[in-house]
Each structure stands twice: as C-alpha cells, then as structure tokens.
C-alpha cells in the first residue's frame, strides 16, 4: 500500500513544479490489520536493536513497506549532539570542530531509506562536491550510513540490491563502523543500525550471507479472512479520503504504543531469563540442528524483548516459543527431501521438547 500524499491529486492538470511540495503522511502503524508476526518482529528490534534486524519476505501487496514506513512514527526520541550528522550522543573534543561544545537535542529515531538505485558514494559518504567546486576545499559529506546511525536502515526489494552494495552493507553491519577514503581524506564514523529488508521471494534469490545477517525473518502472507480484508479496505479508504483526520483518530493508540515501547526499552536490560527458558532455547536449536550460536542468542534477546514489551520481569518458555519461528526459520539447513515449511518444522520440534 502506497504512502499517501496529501492533496496531490494526479491528473489534475497542475503543471510540474508548480504543484506544492506534498507532505508525505504515513499510514499509522497501529491501524495495520493483521500481519502480527511482522509487526512484532519490528517492535522487538526497536526495544533491543542487538536482535539484529528483520527480513520481511512475502507476497506483494501485503503491506511490507507500509509497516516499515509506519514504524518511524511510533519510535521514541533519542538524544544527540545538536547537529551531529552521525547522531552521536557524545562527541569527543576535536572530533568535529565546534561540535563538542554544542547542546544536546532530541530527535526521533532515524529511519533511513536505501533506494535501489543508490550509488556507493552516497551510501558511504563522499567529499562534498559543492565545497570542492566553489571553495576548492575538501569536506566530507556523510552518506546514508551516517544518517542511519542509531536508527533503522530500510531496504525494500533487498533481494534486488546490487552485489557490491550488499558487500558494503555487510562489512559495515558487522563492524559497526564506516570507513571512507577519498581524495586524501580518511573518515571513520560509527554506523550502528538495525537493518530492515523486505522482498518478494519470487522476484529473486537472496544471498545466503545476507540472509544470515538478519536476526529475525518474518513471513507475511495474503490475509484470507474476509472480515480482516473488509477492515483493510475500510481503513484504507478512510485514510485516503482524509489522511489527517485518520491520523488524529488513531493518535491515542499510537501514543499508547509509543509509551509501551519506551517503557520496554527501559526495562529490557533487567529482564531475567531463567534456566528453563534458556534450556528450552538451546534444546530447540539442537533439535533443529542450527549451526553456531547465533540462533540461541537471537532467541534469548528476542524473548527478553518480548517479555519487556509485555511488562514482565521474567522470560518464560512460552516467550521463546512465540518468537521461535521468526528467529530460526532462516537458520535451518536445507534438506532437499524436506517439503514441510520451515515454520512447521520448528513447531514440530517444539512439540517434541
């Protein structure tokens, strides 16, 4: 579902350029019908970014991008040094001249779009062309990775992204630092972000290395419940007819969700994971033959985030069960004779334990 642009009616004969620049209004996150797995995966990553991002795969027309764009509006604020292009909380003296003395400011958690056509220099940053042209001086101009620091980096159709950009992203995501060397300038800046990708498996394969990088893997399918679909159409029409009124009507729910997220962020570090829940997670990974320890780690972090989101102090085995499918479905070994869906295999394994 597209983002609606307020009062920019197409085909109305307004000349290009004369039309007022439209304000983009996102569909409210809380008004999205169904697709609970995707929504939960996104929220858990907000609560604990160490979960490692979400990959959302599914049918076209099921609201993948709508959800990610909508997420931006329920994210809490972060504090950064005023005007810092890297959104840092503190700046060391001399790191960027003048910045060290500045005040702090509150900004919403950034959600940065990485468009498919982006070139590497814009993603990583480059020398400011304008400064070079007019003043003949070298100045680093931060790119999208800088903007995304401490926030979200969203790539729609991630399976169609150029290979060399994928490599860059993997490097940066692994180290948390972006390094640029150009025109004799060498810049190294923090770039820690939650990677959110979405795609349609029919459009192209995803490189296995990239798949591994995502903490959670959400699947979305066409909703087949008629009542839910009626509700989707109803809400969509209401939103398209008057986006601002629609937003106003959903503001209480949006505000409530924001409050819940902030509370969960505060408490997530204190959530305990008792031995039985941890054992359950470990057994599940053993049972499924998941390689390495990333599976258990993601399970544990996601379960803690889930408990925090629901205002609980302790993780239960039930929490692990609830996030097991998105945490593990992309970590199963592929067996050519296995036709059962990964989700079902995980469910079966859980029954056995």
């Amino acid at each position, binding site marked *: *579902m*597209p*983002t*609606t*642009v307020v009062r*920019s009616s*197409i*085909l*109305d*004969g*307004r*000349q*290009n350029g004369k*039309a007022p*620049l*439209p304000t*983009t209004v996102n569909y409210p996150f809380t008004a999205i019908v169904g697709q609970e797995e995707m929504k939960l995966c996104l929220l858990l990553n907000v609560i604990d970014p160490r979960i490692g991002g979400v990959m959302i795969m599914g*049918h*076209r*027309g*099921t*609201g993948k*991008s709508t959800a990610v764009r909508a997420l931006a509006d329920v994210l809490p604020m972060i504090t950064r040094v005023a005007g810092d292009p890297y959104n840092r909380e503190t700046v060391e003296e001399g790191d960027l001249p003048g910045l060290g003395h500045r005040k702090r400011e509150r900004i919403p958690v950034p959600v940065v*779009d*990485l*468009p*498919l*056509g*982006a*070139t*590497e*220099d*814009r*993603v990583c940053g480059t*020398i400011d062309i*304008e400064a*070079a*042209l007019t003043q003949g001086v070298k100045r680093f101009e931060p790119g*999208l990775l800088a903007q995304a620091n401490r926030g979200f980096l969203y790539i*729609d*159709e991630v399976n*169609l992204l*150029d290979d060399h950009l994928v490599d860059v992203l993997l490097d940066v995501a692994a180290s948390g630092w972006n390094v640029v060397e150009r*025109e*004799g300038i060498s810049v190294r800046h923090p770039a820690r972000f939650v990677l959110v990708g979405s795609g349609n498996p*029919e*459009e192209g394969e995803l490189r296995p290395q990239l798949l591994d990088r995502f903490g959670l893997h959400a699947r979305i399918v*066409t*909703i087949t419940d*008629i009542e839910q*679909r*009626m509700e*989707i*159409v*109803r809400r969509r*029409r209401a939103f398209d*007819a008057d986006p601002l009124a629609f937003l106003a009507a959903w503001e209480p729910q949006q505000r409530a969700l924001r409050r819940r997220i902030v509370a969960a962020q505060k408490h997530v570090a204190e959530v305990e994971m008792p031995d039985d829940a941890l054992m359950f997670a470990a057994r599940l990974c053993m049972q499924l033959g998941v390689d390495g320890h990333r599976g258990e780690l993601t399970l544990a972090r996601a379960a803690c985030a889930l408990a925090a989101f629901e205002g609980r102090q302790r993780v239960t085995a039930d929490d692990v069960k609830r996030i097991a499918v998105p945490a593990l479905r992309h970590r199963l070994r592929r067996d*050519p*004779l296995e*036709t059962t869906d990964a989700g079902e295999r995980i469910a079966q394994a859980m029954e056995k334990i």
Partner: protein
Amino acid sequence: MSLSFTELVGLELAKQALLLLAVNPALAGVAIAAAVGSGKSTLARAFAALLPSGTPFVELPVNVTEDRLLGGLDLEATLAAGRRVIERGLLARAHGGVLYVDGLNLLDSDVVARLLGVMADGVVRVEREGLSDVHPARFVLVGTYDPADGEVRRGLLDRLGLIVPFAPQTDERLRAEVVRRNMSASGSGATNAAFEDDATEMLRAMIADARERLPGVRIEEEQIRALIQTALSLGVEGNRADGFAVQAALAKAALDGCSAVDDDDLRLAVRLVLLPRATRMPEAEDRREADDHPQTRERGDEEEGDESNAAPEPESQQIEDLLLSAAEAELPENLLDLPFAMQRRGKSGSRGMALNSRRGRFVRAVEGDPRGNRIALLPTLLAAAPWQKLRMKNEELRKGKRILNSRFSILSSDIRVKRFRDKAGMLYIFVVDASGSMAINRMREAKGAVVRLLQDAYVHRDQVGLIAFRGRQAQVLLAPSQSVERAKRELDVLPTGGGTPLASALLTAWQMAQQARERGISQATLVLMTDGRGNVPLQVENGEAPPAAQAQKAQIQAELQKLAALICADRINAIVIDTQADYLSRGEAPKLAEWLGGRYIYLPNAKAEQIAKAVS
C-alpha cells in the same frame, strides 16, 4: 494526423480501463496486452488528449538508463553555476500526469525495481554521484505490451489497478473498420475531423464530471464483501486488489453518472481487476457452500447485518454468485493464459540477466579498475570535474611537482567503467539413464548432444554438466565448465545396465544447479534422458535394508515427486526426453515431466542432432 480516442475501433475493454483511470487515479495504472498492430500505442497516446490540458504525458523508452529515469548531475549547469545542479529524470517530469510505457514487458528488471519504488512512495529519491535529492513523482502508469514478447514482471503488474488481458482480434468486421478509419485518418478524413473533435470534447467533459462526482459515490458493505469473496475464490494473491476493485467500481459508477455502485459496476471491476489476477478457477465448492446453507440465508434476511463474524451475509453471497458466474464466462479456457496464473518458473528461453563488464546493453557506470573493463569516458570526466579546483590547489602545494602533465587531472578514483546487462549464461545439465538395454545408444547420442551444445556454449556463455545414473546411484561425469574431452572418455568407458536410481539422479542434478547458482549462474536447464522407470530408492545409499517390493515402489514414487517438486520450485527448467522404445508402455516419463513442470519429448531413437535442437 493521428486517430483520436473515439475513432479507435476495437480495444473496447482497454478504452473502458483508460476512462476509469482518468476518472480515478487511485487505480494507479492500466496494463494493456495486445498484439502488434492492434492500435494499443495509438490508443494510449489518444488517451493523453482526454486529460486536462497541461497534464504531463511522459513516454518512458524501454531502454532508459538509470540517470535518465531518476535524474543525475547536470554537468554543464553545475560547472556554470558553481553549485550542484540536478537534472531531474523522466519520473519527476511525469509528476501529476501520465507515464506511458510501450513494451511494459521489455523493461529492464532494474528499471522495474526503481519504478516500483517510486510508485510506492510517490517520490523520487536520488542518492547517487554525490547527489541527494527527494522530489515528488506521483503519476499514473499506462503500459502496453505484446504478450508474444514475454511476460510483464508480476510485481509491476500487481501495482497497476487495471489489467486488460490479451484478446485476439478475430472479428473481421472490426478489422475492416480499423483499416477504414486508419485510411481516413491518413488520407482526406477532414469531414470526420469536426465530428471527432466534438466526441473527444464530450468525453473530456464526461471525465471531468465523473471526477467531481466520484467522492460522493457510495458502495455498500455487501458489495465490498462480494468483491473480496470473489477475489478469494479466484485465488488472487495479496490484499491490494481488493482496494483496486472497489476503486474501479466507484469510478465506473461515477462515469455512468450514478451516485451508487450497481451490479454492472462490480462486474466491470471483476473483469478488469480481479479476473486478470486469478490464479485458479473458482471451485465448485465455493459455490456449493452457499447453497448448502439456506438457513443462513433466511436468517440473514430477517436480522439484516447485525453480526459481522457469522457466515457470509446472504446479499453479498448473491452478488458474489453473480460475479462468479460472470467471471467464469470470461475466464479463458486455459487459465495459464492469465498473467498471474502462469507457472512460477523460468520459461524456456527466458534466461537470467546479469550485470557484467563486457557485453550486452550499457546500464550504468561504476567505479572500477580500468584493466579488463571498458572505460566510460563521459562518466569519468563527470566524476573528475568537480575536483579540479581542489586538485589544482594540491598541486600548487606540492610546488611544481605536478602529478599529471595535463590541465585536467584525473585520478584513479575518478575512473568509471561500464557495466552491461546481458543474458547470463545458462547451465545445461544432462542426466542420462545408463541402465537397461537402450543405454549404450542413449549414451552415444547424449555425448553427441553435449559436444554440440558445448560448441554453441562458447557463443552463449553457457555451461554444460553431465550426470549418468545406473546401479545404485548417480555419478557426475562432467562438472560444469570442465573438460569435454574428459567427459567423452568417461562416457566411453562407462558400463551400462543395472538398476535405475532415478531419484539419486534428480538429487545430484539439483545439487549441481545449486552450486552453479552460488557461482552466479541462476538459470539451469535439466535435460533428462530416461524411460522414467526408477527402481532404486535413495535410501539404499544410506545402507538401509530394502523394504518390501510394493512399499519400495511407493517410496520411490514419493521420492521422485518430492525431488521433482523441489526442482520445479527452484525454477530449474526441465526437459524429459522419453527413450522408451515401446510407444504403448510410456507413462512413467510423462508423469515425471509433469511433476517437474517441464517439457516432455518422445524420442525413442533420439539422435544427438535432435536432442541439441530440442534443448536449445
């Protein structure tokens, strides 16, 4: 002189679709499938004349480059102004109007991906060559294509509300009329001109009127429910079509001057939105269910619509029945003629596309090493230009120690090399049955076909692998891109006869295709030469005790079916060449071909020549 909208004969459904789009831009776009010479592109251009004057109508050439599409640095203006000047692309120019593509199915997958992104967001985000710019680009898309040239990417098709499926023009009178009108348009059709101008004027007025009416048009809950139920019955994927169907019905009602949607409006919505997205025939059960619950129907009549979670309400059920029967009448005999119902796999001939540095169509320039690549001169100069002032300063600092003996300094970081998009090489996997009496003959001919294909492979950058199977399991005789000579030798000394481990052969072939995929060869074609009578199960490899004959047979069948489904799901093309000599005892191989979703060819005495031809 070109024909006006009203003058165009035929393409009635396409006209309807375009009118609906003009009335309701929420429909996002129209895709029209029609053969060459049916007037589809003339129609699209005539459509522009119906729009309010000043509405942009931008034609997108199918070979458009990325910077033309999205925008890029305007070098001349940048240097002149001393600051970055962005030249906006075609998508930005289409803002507020129509983007027209003739040859929707010929668009590059990169271009389609960018287009989809922009359509979803309503803005163009440029993040390239040091530029960062966001500007609005809301447009409706009108696309035409000739299905003979290939499919439109489904992701794109799905974003367009209205789809006009291919309908061959068979009506002779219509054809005659097309010719007559065309002749009068190119000749002395002046007498008609005034009349046609009036007709165009009238249509414009109708559209304007309908646009004003649209926000007030009502649609009942039952009608929406019926549309959604119809979408479910037709197996429409995703939830986007629901909204489009509602918008189409509203537009039709507005166009008819009505203030409420009626059955006809719903029918047209089904025809233009849901039907083309059908992936299955509405099942008899969908209909029967309604008849099985007469109680629900009666009860619903009494207490109208006060429970929303109960069984479908009677009224919507009635409408749905009506819509379904209308849909059934329109469904093509072969459902696979519909764009969304086609098998989800690469059809023979549609090779994977890959970016490379040597051949194909120039897509973009990237930073790179000039060695082994072709330098893109203009992009290189463009990349170097902004730094000249800076570099001059640097040079002065070095006091005469000039790095380059020229006035224009180009450093290695400026070098841009060309990237081309080309048909990626294909991997042919020959899987040859070496069991039984026909084996020797089969091996010889397979060898001939392999050698022949390898000769072609040099031209097409294809690779060939060879797997033989006999006894207990399959064996890779030739890994892709290895020595042909070795394969020939292996084939010469390969013993024949014994069991038929067909499942093992399929598994080995699948693994070969997987490995190739990891190396970037995304498209594989399996050529299976066998009579299809597998009699050795996979498990034997694992050393298990063989089960009873009957159970074993069932196990083999189950294995084959699973493996075939896997190969099919991985979009590996398959061709089964049936070598069963006795025509009447065929049956196993056709079944296998069906499971594989592949082609079946009966060639009992296949010659190398024939095989090579059948495959390529």
